[in-house]
């Protein structure tokens, strides 16, 4: 029940008036005149009586009458559900069936199906039901229908999948379904194990207040589960061979007792190691396998334990490239000094995870197989190539290649136009390469006078500076004596500036590739950067980030999508269940939805021979945690909205509106009756006598 004019309820404060009057009326209203208090003052007086309400029935009568009047003016109105009997309205029921990975635990899924059938069987004549299955996303497998058999049969196609739980997606789908049935009493029935990890995102969701949401918990009382939670792969490069060491982590929660299990490592379908472990009741146990010879080509594998009640998370797939080295093409100007790139090359040669291979080339050599093999092109203080090489470079970057331009005195000396100044005059292909450089050069800054400049504003949240997020002082210690003045072009992002405000590092996306313009001198002649500790991690990060190798992952989780390499002309993907998918190409490229756990292999054209790429996919680790949430907490944070915006079908009829508001008349009548009773009550018995016992008129008043 609500009120049409709730502001009138503020008049409830008027209830204090009769109370005050009852407390004070003897003092102010009708003092009884008496000739003299000479004798009365000699009597023991109980003054405590004066502040007590002595006529409580009359006070209650008056207060009740006043309250009824206030309520009548506030116009109470019954809500739709209260005014219209539910039996008079049809129901629209949406069954939200959880099919996330955790529903495969023991016989939870069977219980869930039984519950869903039971809910569907309660549908009466005229009622409608819809079936929605959900994991991280929701899928309407049966729209609203009054065909009970169709709804039941839709359940046969549902089964648990290797995906996470997202209740918010299910609620959105239910809300969408119920929009089609505004006249009905809406009900949403969750059939789920109420996994706590699925609650994220529910808070803030808008849900019409007329929708009744209830949940049927089908989770097992025993929630003991163990899973392979993580795998780390380490390459061990030896002079004659490359070994691979695998370390896994097995986690468990709420087991009834410690469990002995066999952990198995498989690489490219071959057993590569076995360990016997004792899994604790709750906790993690690391498992290390002996290093094995790294198979040639692309490698996929998995680590598994003996199956328990939830078998899906007992295997963790992973994939790694057989050769993870990064090929860098370094373009050096013809007039370069002998040791100008010494620090740069030596720094990148350090380390083997991954190994960085540098090949010096001329600008006009940037085409053909050499460019396709490379992961990164570094223009060392050189302009972008012209002609076919420039076009090839631009095309290669657009298709996912990485280009790093190290700007120095030469580019700065070219003045306005910078890298592409000459290219503008050299044919139709030149502008494409020119546009790759995200800045114009307008001279050089000389900081010799003030002992060199430093970096002033660095965006540490950028991936390029991730190694310095906890050690930003390492960057500020670097001194730069000379550097080019640059002006970022449209679409470019300045991610670091010198202390005089000039851009130091500029980043820009070019198609699916990246272009990074580094204004900081990387040689020892124009600064001391090569001599600083920050030099090595910065260069490593620069190469990996620009080459797109900064975050190599051994696997992805279900629910994501895989953007296939643009170099594939007719991509064909084998998915974990063995079927072949040929995704269509669009402007971005070909994309494959990762719905199942396992290894995805992509081929170009025919599915045979060595796959072009591998991708391992696993279910989210949060699905292994079967901890449920209280059903009452499920909807905490959901914002209830009124139904006025739902649809025009919600507008009540005139009769219905009147029936919802008619209470005010009854309240007013009751108030009048109470006031009449108060009049009679207050003038009967001793109350009336007290009123009439007043002093007579003074002498002479006639």
């Amino acid at each position, binding site marked *: 029940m609500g009120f049409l004019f709730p502001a009138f309820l503020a008049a409830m404060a008027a209830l204090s008036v009769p109370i005050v009057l009852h407390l004070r009326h003897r003092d102010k209203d009708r003092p009884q*005149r*008496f*000739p003299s208090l000479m004798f009365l003052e000699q009597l023991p*007086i109980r*003054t405590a009586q004066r502040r007590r309400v002595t006529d409580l029935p009359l006070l209650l009568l008056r207060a009740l009458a006043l309250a009824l009047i206030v309520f009548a003016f506030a116009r109470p109105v019954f809500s739709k559900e209260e005014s219209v009997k539910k039996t008079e309205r049809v129901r629209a029921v949406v069954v939200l069936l959880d099919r996330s990975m955790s529903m495969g635990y023991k016989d939870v899924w069977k219980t869930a199906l039984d519950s869903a059938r039971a809910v569907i069987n309660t549908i009466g004549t005229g009622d409608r039901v819809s079936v929605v299955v959900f994991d991280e996303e929701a899928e309407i497998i049966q729209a609203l229908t009054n065909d009970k058999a169709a709804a039941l049969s839709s359940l046969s196609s549902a089964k648990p999948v290797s995906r996470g739980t997202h209740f918010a997606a299910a609620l959105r789908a239910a809300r969408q379904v119920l929009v089609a049935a505004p006249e009905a009493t809406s009900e949403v029935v969750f059939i789920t194990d109420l996994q706590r990890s699925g609650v994220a995102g529910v808070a803030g969701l808008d849900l019409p207040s007329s929708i009744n949401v209830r949940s049927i918990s089908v989770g097992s009382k025993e929630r003991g589960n163990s899973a392979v939670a993580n795998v780390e792969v380490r390459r061990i490069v030896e002079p004659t061979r490359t070994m691979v060491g695998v370390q896994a982590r097995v986690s468990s929660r709420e087991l009834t007792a410690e469990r002995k299990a066999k952990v198995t490592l498989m690489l490219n379908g071959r057993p590569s190691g076995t360990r016997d472990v004792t899994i604790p009741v709750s906790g993690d146990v690391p498992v290390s396998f002996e290093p094995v010879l790294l198979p040639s080509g692309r490698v996929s594998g998995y680590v598994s334990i003996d199956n328990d009640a939830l078998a899906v998370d007992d295997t963790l797939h992973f994939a790694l490239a057989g050769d993870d080295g990064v090929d860098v093409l370094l373009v050096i100007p013809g007039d370069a000094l002998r040791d100008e790139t010494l620090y740069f090359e030596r720094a990148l040669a350090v380390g083997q995870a991954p190994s960085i291979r540098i090949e010096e080339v001329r600008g006009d050599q940037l085409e053909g197989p050499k460019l396709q093999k490379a992961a990164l092109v570094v223009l060392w203080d050189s302009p972008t190539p012209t002609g076919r090489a420039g076009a090839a470079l631009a095309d290669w970057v657009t298709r996912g290649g990485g280009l790093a331009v190290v700007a120095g005195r030469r580019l700065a000396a070219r003045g306005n136009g910078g890298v592409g100044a000459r290219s503008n005059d050299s044919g139709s292909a030149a502008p494409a390469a020119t546009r790759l450089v995200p800045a114009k050069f307008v001279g050089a800054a000389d900081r010799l006078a003030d002992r060199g400049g430093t970096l002033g504003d660095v965006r540490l949240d950028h991936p390029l500076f991730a190694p310095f997020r906890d050690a930003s002082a390492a960057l500020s210690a670097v001194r730069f004596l000379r550097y080019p003045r640059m002006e970022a072009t449209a679409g470019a992002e300045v991610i670091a500036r010198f202390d005089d405000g000039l851009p130091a590092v500029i980043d820009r996306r070019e198609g699916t590739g990246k272009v990074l313009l580094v204004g900081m001198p990387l040689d020892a002649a124009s600064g001391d950067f090569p001599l600083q500790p920050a030099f090595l991690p910065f260069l490593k990060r620069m190469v990996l980030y620009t080459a797109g190798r900064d975050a190599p992952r051994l696997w992805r989780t279900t629910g994501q999508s895989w953007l296939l390499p643009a170099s594939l002309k007719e991509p064909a993907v084998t998915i974990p269940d063995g079927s072949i998918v040929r995704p269509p190409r669009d402007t971005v490229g070909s994309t494959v939805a990762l719905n199942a756990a396992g290894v995805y292999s992509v081929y170009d054209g025919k599915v045979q021979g060595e796959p072009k790429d591998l991708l391992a996919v696993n279910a989210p680790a949060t699905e292994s945690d079967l901890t449920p949430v209280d059903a009452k907490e499920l909807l905490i944070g959901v914002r209830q909205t009124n139904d006025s915006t739902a649809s025009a079908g919600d507008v009540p009829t005139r009769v219905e509106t009147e029936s919802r508001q008619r209470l005010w008349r009854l309240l007013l009548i009751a108030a009048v009756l109470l006031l009449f009773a108060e009049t009679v009550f207050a003038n009967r018995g001793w109350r009336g006598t*007290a009123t009439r016992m007043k*002093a*007579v008129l003074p002498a002479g008043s006639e």
Partner: protein
Amino acid sequence: MPLYRFRSRRCSGMASAPAAFLDPAMLARISDLALLARTVVDGFMHGQHRSIRKGSSSDFAEHRSYQPGDDLRRIDWRVFGRTDRFYVKEYEADTNASVTFILDASGSMDFGSGPLTKFRYGQFLVASLAWLSQKQGDRVGLATFSKDLTDIVPASTRHLQLLLHTLSRAKVGGPSQLVRAVDKISHLTTRSGIIVLVTDCYDSADSVANSIGSLRMRGHDVIVFHLIDTAERDFPYSAATTFEDAETGARLPLRPEDLRGKYQKLLGDHHAALTRRLANTGADYVRVYTDQPLDRALHEYLDRRLARSRVR
């Protein structure tokens, strides 16, 4: 302005039954005090079997100083020629008695649970007694008081109309200073006579008795009419109420049901003390309830008046 004015036709019809005019409820309908007094006295005297004895004499008694209000014809001009002072010649049996009425006009008198307040009742009583005294040839005077003397009419055989006029114009209100007023009266009256005090006696019995005693010491005969309203006597209140003092305006919240018995005991003790203490002084004390007819008061007065044998 007519001298007599009836408030209703019923009053003239009641003339056939004069005793009915003694009823306070009936007297409340008469606005003119002179008419009221004459009506009451006529009604009271109707059926009286003995006539009022009148004394008279023309023997010279003494000279006394002229007082405002004295008849100028009584001034002895010979004495004035010798002494340059005004003296009035007085004779034995010039009047039967000098009667001074003292009416309490304090706020406590402005109370009444019936048709009449105590003050109104007191006005009727004084007017009737004055009329009665006049008919016997007595000199009549008036004094009203509250916290001090407010109106004074010297006693004279010709001051009845002035007395009635003053009485009708008297205002009631303010605190009561009974003792102080009586003391002043005792100094103003040079000749002994009859003092009729009409009051509700809201003062201690000892104080009242002491003041009356001083009047008695000066040779006055004193009659005290103690006016009491029935509500003062019965204290008929039941609801918790705040009582307000009619004189001072002070307020006192009470539950009368719980205090009625104690109040009536205190009141009874006060009345008994007044009766005892005034009897000791030789004054007459008459307790009059305002719902009673006036005849009892008149009887008391006449009995006292007739018992007085000495005249100047």
